[in-house]
């Protein structure tokens, strides 16, 4: 489904990703772990199409198509979803209208009938309950004044509504208490299926107790330095990131 080869990306003249290779097949759940500054979030954002990062080398194919040639909205319509680490607030745009516009853009692309506001409300009600979100938040502006947990639930709600083929969760666990974490994990697990893939980007293994990955990759200094099964995450939990870090990164740490 997703095939990343030799991906290099930079922000300004600072190189962050230095040759990522990653293959994700339908039905799989991958966890990308790594210390702060290793490039995890960059990778997630590059896949979603944020243009503050420049891809300087390498390719990303999604279902065999060149993802890097598509604007972000095209990627979303093709079925890529990024749950943001820091969802932005958009005062003045109602959450309900936003969610409906997003769903209709995707439905239209899939050749499905667009929903009107009443049909949409019916369709969304169930999912709002699943993420244990106050329905009142639909009528507010997008993320405007939402608590950290509410923002993350809103991300998961969007994911549940859009039913992406590839969902990328960028540190969705950060700042969540255990109850919220369980709700978020349940939302993700419901999406698991043979036709979908999920990439969980996280610093801690905590979330992986609830979303059990098939594969774990460790990112360090812009490269995947280690890949393995779910045991790798447990090992990281026990031993920290030091033992898997790239030599350059270790050097850098020593110099600090």
């Amino acid at each position: 489904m997703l095939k990343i080869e030799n991906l290099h990306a930079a922000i300004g003249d600072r190189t962050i990703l230095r040759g990522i290779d990653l293959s994700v097949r339908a039905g799989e759940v991958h966890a990308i772990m790594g210390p702060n500054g290793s490039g995890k979030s960059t990778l997630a954002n590059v896949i979603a199409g944020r243009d503050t990062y420049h891809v300087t080398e390498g390719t990303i194919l999604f279902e065999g198509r060149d993802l890097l040639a598509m604007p972000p909205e095209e990627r979303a319509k093709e079925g890529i979803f990024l749950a943001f680490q820091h969802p932005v607030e958009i005062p003045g745009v109602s959450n309900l209208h936003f969610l409906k516009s997003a769903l209709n853009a995707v439905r239209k692309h899939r050749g499905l009938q667009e929903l009107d506001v009443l049909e949409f409300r019916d369709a969304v009600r169930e999912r709002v309950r699943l993420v244990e979100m106050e329905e009142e938040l639909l009528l507010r502006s997008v993320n405007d004044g939402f608590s950290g947990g509410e923002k993350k639930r809103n991300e998961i709600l969007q994911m549940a509504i859009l039913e992406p083929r590839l969902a990328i969760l960028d540190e969705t666990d950060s700042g969540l208490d255990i109850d919220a974490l369980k709700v978020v994990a349940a939302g993700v697990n419901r999406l698991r299926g043979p036709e979908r893939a999920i990439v969980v980007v996280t610093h801690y293994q905590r979330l992986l107790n609830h979303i059990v990955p098939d594969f774990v990759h460790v990112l360090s200094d812009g490269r995947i330095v280690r890949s393995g099964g779910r045991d790798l995450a447990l090992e990281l939990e026990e031993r920290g990131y030091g033992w898997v870090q790239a030599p350059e990164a270790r050097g850098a740490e020593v110099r600090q």
Partner: protein
Amino acid sequence: MTLAAATRDRYLSAYDRVTGNGGRRPAWMRRLRDEALTRFLESGFPAAKEEDWKYTPLASLEGGEFELTPSGGTLSPGDVAPLLPREGAANVLVFLDGRYRRELSAQNALPPGAHLGSLAEAISGELDGLVPYFSRAPLNPFTDLNTMLMEDGAFLHLGKDTEIAEPVHLLFLSSSAERPVMSHPRNLVIAGENSRVTIVERYAGRGEAGYFVNSMTDIVAGRNSAVTHYRIQEDGDAAWSVATLRSRQGEGSRFAAHSASFGAKLSRYDIHAVLDGERAECLLNGLYLGKVRQHADHFVTVDHAMPSGSSREYFHGVLRDQARGVFRGRVIVRRDAQGTDARQTNRNLLLSKDTEADSRPQLEIHADDVKCTHGATVGTLDEEQLFYLRSRGIDVESAKGLLTWAFAGEVLRRFDLPGIRRTVESKLASWLPDSRGAREILRETG
């Protein structure tokens, strides 16, 4: 700036027309007109070197060969209907080229203690009680021009404890005659103690007509009164649209002035709000939109003369193409005005790189126990917000439209008349480069 001979002759003959046409009576009005004329001939139009007019290009206005229409243009109810609220309006005064058109107006049961009608009739009725309201110091050459050439406008008087529940609509239309016309509408609102009213002024004209409209509205809000004013400016694309709103508030009164500026080649809106009683509250809330080569100019003065007043100013400008927006916000806190709480915000959204916005806050504080804040921003759409919307499948043009709508909406959501808010939102939707999202929202909330 001294007037060119041809311009001087043009305004002198207009003055002769007005004063020969009943405009010389009563004597006090004649005297006020004469004084205004003398000042105007002396000052001419404001010069670009004057600080308050530095950004307002008046040269083309000054050269315009405007005339007062001999009889007022023609107009049918069909021209007026689209400018009236969908739900209908009990009281509507229609003015064409500055003259009252009774046959197109509607006046229905007003409560006892309320009077609404033509200002010209009130003046010629020799209501000497009006003199003080006309004798206030002029603000600038345009207000002099208005006094010297005004033909009519609305006069609204509310006695003590009088409330007009339905908004009063005032419609000022300019006709597209062969020669460019000018008009100088003048309105006077006197709201007595504990009275309550909402007034909606709407200005419109045909796109191709290069007319000049120069209105002035004086509002005196008595003790504990609540007065809300709207000005919706949708003058024609080739028009010069100048307006002055002057308010004076008594103790404990609440005054709100909302505005939306869409039209005109050049528009200038001067608001001069004086908080002249203790604990007066003043809200000034405006949206200006500019496209092509439009110039939209706001000059807002809030004068806190008495203690414990509060004022809020929110002005948002959205500019596209090569449009230019100017906002100057002056806040004066007089020595006696202790406990003043004044806040001013001006935000400008630039949708293309050839636009320009100038924002000048100016605080003059002579009291020590005051809270005064001001903030001005000029910027483009937020990249983070744009990416967020796009990452959910919303294409870039709709996303921009939606964010622009939201930016303008921050001002419009303070409009407390749903009908007017809706009207302005519809106009905003058609103004946007990409209005799909906005139209959908309007349908959903319709």
